[in-house]
């Protein structure tokens, strides 16, 4: 949030309320923040730092004595990881997945929000329908699409067959073939992302000042020009807020992939999040898994920071 306006509103209060018998202006906010800070420090920050420590050790669950730090071997996990072809494959897959999933989700949501803003009938029901995917836990999204894309009993193949586009049962192995597996998980993630993105962009579109569009109409701008030069730039803060919310949850893709393909077959849909689980939980190599975890943390924080910065900047421009 911009510190300018915060500073303004804060000092107003503090000027008027110089002293308080019970608790001073200086300590009250800290007192209010304390429980939140304690929980986050104890349950998130401390374990995270601990996992950084573990990542410098060769710790394996079944060898309790392996949790000891030796300076000479500290970076061994990272060396192993960076020499691991599957690790790089999972990184590549994750980049492809995030790039396509986020961009396509955003473009579709943008189009849908423009469409919904122009709809004249049944807006209420439409909004409810739009929220249907929000009722699904990510794990349910994964289950649902695993079933839809199932080769033998899935909705997609059944539909293709009934429409006469497919001859035999199980002809297209959506979750197995390359690149169909990646395609399927991207479709699932877009379906999951759409409601929040569309709702925010729709709210943004409806809040834009009507006079600007009337002026543009008078100047003879067509609807594409109005969208391109008025709506789209003015929506920037809403776009970035939607993308910031989305980036907080990018690891939800793990839930989807875990149930749809579990990274397989042959690591074709392996993402960094599924690979962490494979290394750490299934192979009980906690040291190596912790090193990998830190890759996911850095990625998530970088994403969130990037969109958050853009959000702050887009507000300053306005």
């Amino acid at each position: 949030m911009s510190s300018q306006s915060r500073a303004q509103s804060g000092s107003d209060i503090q000027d008027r309320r110089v002293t308080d018998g019970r608790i001073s202006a200086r300590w009250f906010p800290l007192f209010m923040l304390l429980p939140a800070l304690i929980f986050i420090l104890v349950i998130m920050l401390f374990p995270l730092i601990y996992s950084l420590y573990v990542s410098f050790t060769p710790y394996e669950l079944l060898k309790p004595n392996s949790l000891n730090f030796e300076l000479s071997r500290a970076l061994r996990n990272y060396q192993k990881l960076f020499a691991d072809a599957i690790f790089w494959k999972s990184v590549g897959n994750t980049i492809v997945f995030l790039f396509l999933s986020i961009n396509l989700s955003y473009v579709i949501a943008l189009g849908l929000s423009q469409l919904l803003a122009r709809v004249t009938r049944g807006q209420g029901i439409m909004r409810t329908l739009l929220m249907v995917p929000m009722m699904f836990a990510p794990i349910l999204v994964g289950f649902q699409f695993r079933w839809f894309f199932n080769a033998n009993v899935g909705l997609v193949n059944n539909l293709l067959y009934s429409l006469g586009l497919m001859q035999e049962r199980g002809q297209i192995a959506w979750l197995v073939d390359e690149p169909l597996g990646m395609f399927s998980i991207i479709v699932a993630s877009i379906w999951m992302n759409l409601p929040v993105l569309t709702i925010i962009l729709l709210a943004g579109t409806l809040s834009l000042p009507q006079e600007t569009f009337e002026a543009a109409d008078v100047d003879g701008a067509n609807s594409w020009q109005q969208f391109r030069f008025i709506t789209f730039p003015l929506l920037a803060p809403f776009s970035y807020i939607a993308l910031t919310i989305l980036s907080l949850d990018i690891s939800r893709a793990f839930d989807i992939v875990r149930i749809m393909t579990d990274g397989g077959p042959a690591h074709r849909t392996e993402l960094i999040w599924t690979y962490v689980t494979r290394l750490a939980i299934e192979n009980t190599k906690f040291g190596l898994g912790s090193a990998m975890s830190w890759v996911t943390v850095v990625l998530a924080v970088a994403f969130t920071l990037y969109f958050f910065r853009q959000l702050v900047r887009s507000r300053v421009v306005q």
Partner: protein
Amino acid sequence: MKPGETIQRRRRNQRFLNLLAWLILLLMALPAFWIVLTAFRPNSEINSWPPVWVPQELTLDAFATMFGLNPEERMRVPVESYMRNSLLAAGISTVVAVSIGTLAGYAFARFRFRFQTAAFLGIMLSRAIPGVALSLPLFILFNQMRLVNNIFGLAAVYIAMNIPFSTWLMDGFFRQIPQDLSEAAYIDGCGYWSAFWRVELPLALPGFATAAIFAFLAAWNEFQIVSVLSRSAASRTFPPGLFDFTEQFTFDWRGMAAMSAIMMVPAIIFVILVQRNLVSGMTFGATKG
């Protein structure tokens, strides 16, 4: 071109737009409908080839099997246990996290202090930490403290995970309340705490409800942490419980659909309740700094 024609064309365009919107949204909502419908269909129809599109009969078999009322089917999923654990973890973490988030949100919305921006950003970024990354060290630490397989240990993690978003939402809701009210309270002799407790908090209660709904659903739907921290059915919640219906090569699609339908109940209730507050809750940050 006559003016009448233009109006007619506009009307035709509008009708086309409405139709297109309906089509897309129905397509988006269809999967949910299909899942619920499948929960009530017999297995023979679900797995039949060629596909049966129109249900010939509806049955409660899947739910009977799940709750152990079906003597013929031996597969038994401990749904009651999952439901109890899900309700406990989500309920406890919601009440605690939203209360804590309300305090923090108030501090951010109404006061200026050192490291404010840094603290705010730090809290928000902690929300971005992937569950998979957090679950591993938590497992190691909880293992030493005998908190693995403990539903209260899980609830504590969910509290921490829900604090950031609750703080963010409450910060926004408090900013929408005019400052004159708290200032009037100060003039009337209220301290900071009583101005918060007696004047501003009651006005922010709709926001509190919205934050609670988000927190409840986040915990209810969480999978990454619980799948590592709970090693037995006794402490498992619904999301990892879904895997009870899978074996190496067979999936009990109907059973999963039935459990999905049960899992969606709170979300359906909440989405209906929250609809109006949802948009204002999420977009305030775009316009107000």
